[in-house]
């Protein structure tokens, strides 16, 4: 899972349009997968630091909690219904979002696209 987080961090560095979208976002987000904690420290739309937990001292604004199987399905090119979106994952009971949800919603497009960065490319058949 750490590799996935690093993949997300590196992909964001390569996407100036996404960094511009998140230019006003400088907050820490906790991603928790099967109990494993990853603190994504955003600074002006970049993941400036990727800190591994567990930690009881790292402040964060909100958390996205899920399991590895669900996250890996989310990152497939065409996830099954319910696994295709973070809010849909919450609705089917495979994820939880806690903390300052309004902050997430204000930056929702940016954060949804960042979390989806490890997603496999879909092959388009013409």
């Amino acid at each position, binding site marked *: 899972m750490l590799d996935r987080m690093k993949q997300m961090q590196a992909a964001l560095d390569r996407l100036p349009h996404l960094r511009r979208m998140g230019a006003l976002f400088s907050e820490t987000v906790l991603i928790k997968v099967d109990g494993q904690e990853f603190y994504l420290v955003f600074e002006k739309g970049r993941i400036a630091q990727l800190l591994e937990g567990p930690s009881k001292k790292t402040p964060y604004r909100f958390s996205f909690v899920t399991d590895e199987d669900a996250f890996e399905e989310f990152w497939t090119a065409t996830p099954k*219904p*319910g696994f295709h*979106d973070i*809010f849909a994952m919450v*609705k089917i009971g495979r994820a939880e979002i806690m903390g300052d949800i309004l902050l997430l919603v204000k930056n929702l497009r940016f954060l949804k696209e960042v979390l989806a960065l490890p997603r496999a490319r879909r092959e388009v058949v013409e």
Partner: protein
Amino acid sequence: MTIEQITGRYLTVEVAGRAQRIYFEEAGQGRPVLCLHTAGSDTRQWRHILNDPAITAENRIIAFDMPWHGKSLPPEGFMQEEYLLSTKAYMETVLAVIGGLELNRPVLAGVSMGGRIALQLAVHHPESFAGFLAIEASDFQPAWYDIDWFHRPDAHGGEMGAALVSTNISPYAPDTERANTLWMFMQSGPGVFRGDLSFYTQDDSLVGQLHRIDTAKTPVHFIVGAYDFTCTPEDARRTAEQVEGATLSVMDEVGHFPMSEYPEAFRPFFVDGLARMPSAGAGAS
């Protein structure tokens, strides 16, 4: 160069004592089919159906922007108002457009909140319609979000709304059409999506009324996408089961905005739905 077959004009009608200047688009001739857009969007969602020569060869497809949406301006005095859509105003608007355009018992095809009002009209004003396509439609959906998120001074309601509704777009949808679908939400006027959601998530007046629909006179066909997490296939099925004689189709690779997000996958279901409706002039009053 291409020039599309869609034409757009304006119609001014009176709704609840107020003049409403309504923008509508149409294409084709034959049986009238009136199409309703979703909350927070506009007629452009129907662009692919309006541009489909096989469909418009036998059907006069018409779609209009609800007041406050798209190219329909809000009514005079709107700057001193809070926009909140109601079932009564929505039904009156649809009936006013039908009257204004002198449509003879059109098929009504509504999506999401348009599907909800199609079912309300099937209960309360069936005499004005030939039949109903209730797309991504249910009797009631309480909000799993706070509708006030989408109208506040410190954030862009349109961008937030688009990001929220992206939950309901299928991963099979072509990237271009996904983006176009979201763009319409981003362009929505301040407070309009919230005002639509107020109607959609708080008005439960349809609950317990669906048994009144007589599908022998006005058939009702439901269409729902498997990737719709606002109106799930279970929600549509629960609703359809309350309408005796109603039919239901589930689209496996489509979400909440089928005609806009994935037009190619939606088309056969829409054509099938139209085939279930009375042909032009059948049973006309």
